[in-house]
């Protein structure tokens, strides 16, 4: 959450999302970020001593016409 607030304050396009299943088996919280912002995020995190488990790239798209609701 601290990470989210800090990145938001810096004007980045960030969204809170459930952790994708490819990355963790627990329903956890992740931040969705843009690929081009990743280096900047690593910098911010180390400067402000924010902790994160990892940054992973996923080739996922959101498809609002899939109509799969579980």
């Amino acid at each position, binding site marked *: *959450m601290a990470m*989210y607030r800090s990145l*938001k304050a810096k004007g980045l396009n960030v*969204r*809170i*999302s*459930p*952790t*994708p*299943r490819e990355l*963790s*088996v*627990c*329903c*956890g*919280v*992740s931040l*969705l970020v843009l690929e081009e912002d990743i280096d900047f995020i690593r910098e911010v995190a180390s400067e402000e001593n924010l902790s994160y488990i990892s940054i992973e790239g996923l080739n*996922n798209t*959101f*498809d*609002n*016409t*899939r*109509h*799969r*609701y*579980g």
Partner: protein
Amino acid sequence: MADNQKMWAELGMNLEMHDMLCEVLPGAVGDVFMSQENRPEKMDFFDMVLADVHGIRPAELVEFKKTGGKVFGTFCAYVPDEVIFAAGGIATGLCAGSQFWVPGGERYLPANTCPLIKAMLGARFDKTCPFYRTADMYIGESTCDGKKKAYEILGTDVPLHVMDLPQMKRPVDMEKWAYEIKELIKVVEAETGNKVTEENLAEWIKKINAKRATLQRLYNTRKAAKAPISGTDTLLVSQIAYYDDPERFTQMVNILCDELEQRVADGVDVAPGAKRILISGTPMAIPNWKMHNIIETSGGIVVCEETCTGTRYFEGMVDETGTTLDEMVQNIADRYMGINCACFTPNTGRFDDVIRLAKEYNVDGVIDINLKFCQTYDIEGYTLEQKLNEAGIKVLGIETDYTDNDAQQIKTRVEAFIETLE
């Protein structure tokens, strides 16, 4: 995150099966919520609650229970949260909005039972919902026949108190509901060991009213000609209203409203050119976002819901001027009996509500949604359609359940309906 697994295990959940539920959530949330353009920033709190829906709030409830607190699971907008919180308990909605739980419920119930009721039993007996596991006691209500009889089965596995909701709205029924609320007070007092007093009840009447007022404020922003927030996002807020801490929820919705009111002032429009739709009908428990998603990807924008996850939940305040317990209980009874559910007869108030809301929110059309096998709303749909036609308001009736298989057929109808509004 490993803490979640530990908590779920301690709650006696079926972890393997629950894992299957967790598997579908990120994809569905991505498709339904993250794909939307121009979302309000302050949806972030609600995104977080949703992202860890079985983690954050259940953990709070578990902590509360460690201090001796009691958690009451509820299923319906008629159950008065005021008295549960006044007795020092926590009321939490038990949702039942996923197809995931339906097969579990079908082991106990006839196939032609509504999916909400099936999911309710499935979530309990499959041990795949931490809210169902955490609640010390369930508070049911005799709204429809399906629920009434299903509570008998549910009650074999968990302490359950059923409130007898009248089916008419005569003065004698208002008194009867006040009596039922007094019975509920006795039940929660016995469970929590705390007394409901004039002081704590007055305090919680105010607090729950404040929550209603903030939801009304949220809905008011949707009356603007340019919609500042999607119906899908608002539905999520309404769903979370049932189980989040009421005071924090009020605060968070107010923060969201600050942003939305600014958006209205700035003329921000999340769905330019979309047709304004009022949804009426049966409740949409989390994670049932199907109809909102279909409508909002078919050229529509949902600007109001006349449902239990909409105006029926928050419209009407409890009169705060009562000084004695009797007065307060009667005031609470009067407010809840003002909700117009299809389980009542006659239920002309609902027709008036839908027509009024259609005008207040300046909608292009109404989509009346019926959960499959919900007999009362299904039958009432006929008269509702007539009344709307008489008022010159276009309406489309849709019957559906939680499955995905009719999504394309429904999409055709919704698109065609929106084409007729042009």
